[in-house]
């Protein structure tokens, strides 16, 4: 579990993170989205006890940031934005070093487990410099999991990876989610965030909004229903707009796009209304806004 209360970080006059208050329950995948320089990595560094907050408080897995830092570091895993591997050492040696630093009891066993889990066992004797970007990322993920942390911080896990490698990383994240771990992901990949995250926080120095992806769409854009008609005209639009459940309606070619409160409850009535007015309805669908649209709208508003 991760909780923060007015967490703030300043570097001189510059405020990198301002009054971040957040609660992430155990077992949740939380996506932390924001433009470059928003303060995402600074937030991760505070939560992993790499840097200290200027103000506010935070706790990770029940340990207080700034007071129980070593306990926090023992209980979390971190995938940094760049893998930071020892290029001259083999994959196995890279992991052995970290297993020892994390005080893992069965070093050989854990190293083998995660090398096999990530499909790197056959390359265990190869130096990390010979690995592709995707393989290095997988090795870095293995490094973050060796000590079986309860909470994992992933900073841009699929940055720079090809689609196949990205898919592998995504599947891997889902697998560790199934194990009940809390996962905190910083990402620019909105599709990835949409697919993986239970909740998303959009961040730009301060937290703009936090919610599940589907709720975010609703919050920012409302729910837009599209009525595809044989022939649509403004009269039909005006008639639809009079209904109390419709907050907005407009004509787009032969379609009526309406923002409707609780479409499941009101759509049948609205369809009957349009038919009574002579509309020939071809089909009805919901306009699904992409998370990118949501994100850009929020950042623009901020």
């Amino acid at each position, binding site marked *: 579990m991760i909780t923060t209360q007015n967490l703030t970080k300043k*570097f001189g006059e510059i405020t990198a993170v301002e009054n971040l208050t957040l609660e992430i329950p155990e077992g949740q995948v939380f996506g932390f989205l924001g433009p470059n320089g928003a303060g995402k990595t600074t937030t991760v*560094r505070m939560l*992993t006890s*790499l*840097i*200290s907050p200027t103000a506010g408080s935070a706790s990770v897995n029940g340990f207080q940031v700034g007071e129980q830092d*070593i306990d926090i*570091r*023992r209980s*979390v895993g*971190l995938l*940094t934005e*760049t*893998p*930071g*591997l*020892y*290029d*001259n*050492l083999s994959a196995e*040696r890279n992991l052995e*070093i*970290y297993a*020892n*630093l*994390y*005080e893992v009891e069965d070093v050989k066993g854990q190293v083998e487990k995660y090398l096999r889990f990530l499909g790197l066992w056959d390359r265990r004797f190869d130096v990390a410099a010979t690995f592709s970007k995707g393989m290095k990322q997988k090795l*870095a993920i293995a*490094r*973050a999991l060796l000590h079986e942390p309860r909470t994992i911080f992933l900073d841009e896990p699929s940055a720079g990876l090809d689609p196949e490698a990205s898919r592998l990383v995504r599947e891997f994240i889902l697998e560790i989610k199934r194990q009940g771990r809390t996962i905190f992901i910083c990402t620019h990949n909105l599709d990835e965030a949409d697919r993986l995250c239970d909740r998303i926080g959009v961040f730009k120095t301060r937290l703009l909004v936090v919610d599940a992806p589907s709720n975010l769409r609703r919050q920012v854009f409302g729910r837009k229903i599209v009525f595809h008609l044989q022939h649509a005209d403004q009269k039909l639009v005006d008639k639809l707009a009079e209904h109390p459940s419709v907050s907005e309606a407009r004509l787009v070619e032969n379609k009526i796009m309406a923002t409707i409160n609780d479409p499941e409850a009101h759509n049948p009535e609205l369809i009957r209304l349009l038919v009574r007015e002579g509309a020939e309805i071809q089909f009805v669908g919901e306009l699904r806004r992409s998370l990118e649209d949501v994100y850009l709208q929020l950042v623009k508003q901020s």
Partner: protein
Amino acid sequence: MNKINTILRKEWSEVFKNRMVLFTVAFLPLILTAIPLVIIYFSGTSEDFTGMTSDIPGEFNALCPSELSGGDCFQVFIVSQFMIMFMIIPLAIPSSISAYSIVGEKINRSLEPLLATPITTAELLIGKSLAAIIPALAATWIGFGIFILGTWIMISNPVVIGNFLDLRWIIAIFIIGPLMALSAVSFSIIVSSRVNDPRVAEQVSMIIILPVLAAFFGQMAGIIILNTTFMIASALVLGLVDLVLVYLSVRLFQRETIITRWK
């Protein structure tokens, strides 16, 4: 201790794959050990120097035991000029290892995941420092041992050999040597925190050799006499310098400083 040991072994397995570091650790001590031995070998017997004793500075003559002939004293004087070279080893090796170790981690961006582990900065600093100091001291002491052995084989006069094992050289090799290694590591950490090229870090860190070179040339010119008093005074001064350098390097080697300012 386990984490310090892990860092130590990690450093050695990484750094010694670098040819520059390997050359410094392996060949520099060999060269600096060979120089005085070659001088002894080619200088022939001490009788050859009997007529040259007037060339020895008077203060050095005073250091020679009365059992030594003028020729023996001259031989000791010549070799002593080059024994100061042993003092370069505990400075050059740690500078080279530390530069590649710390700047290498900066370039690789491997410090952040390392600091995200439960290791304390003290453990990390001690591990990195020992990784640089231990090879330096081993090379210095082994080199000195080889020198003494070679001298014993080539020179039959035990009084001459005993002169190379007197208190000033014992202080130099076994007290000043470790203090020098510590100052080299500390200075290298300070330099490495500011630069992003290990070769630059190594070259800048080598400035620390200048005092030794000054002593070498000062001795050659007769300005400095490396007697026991000088060695004791040097050890005390070096101890104070080490306190300052260690303090500064520890201040720089803080988690937040490394993450946010070591770029």
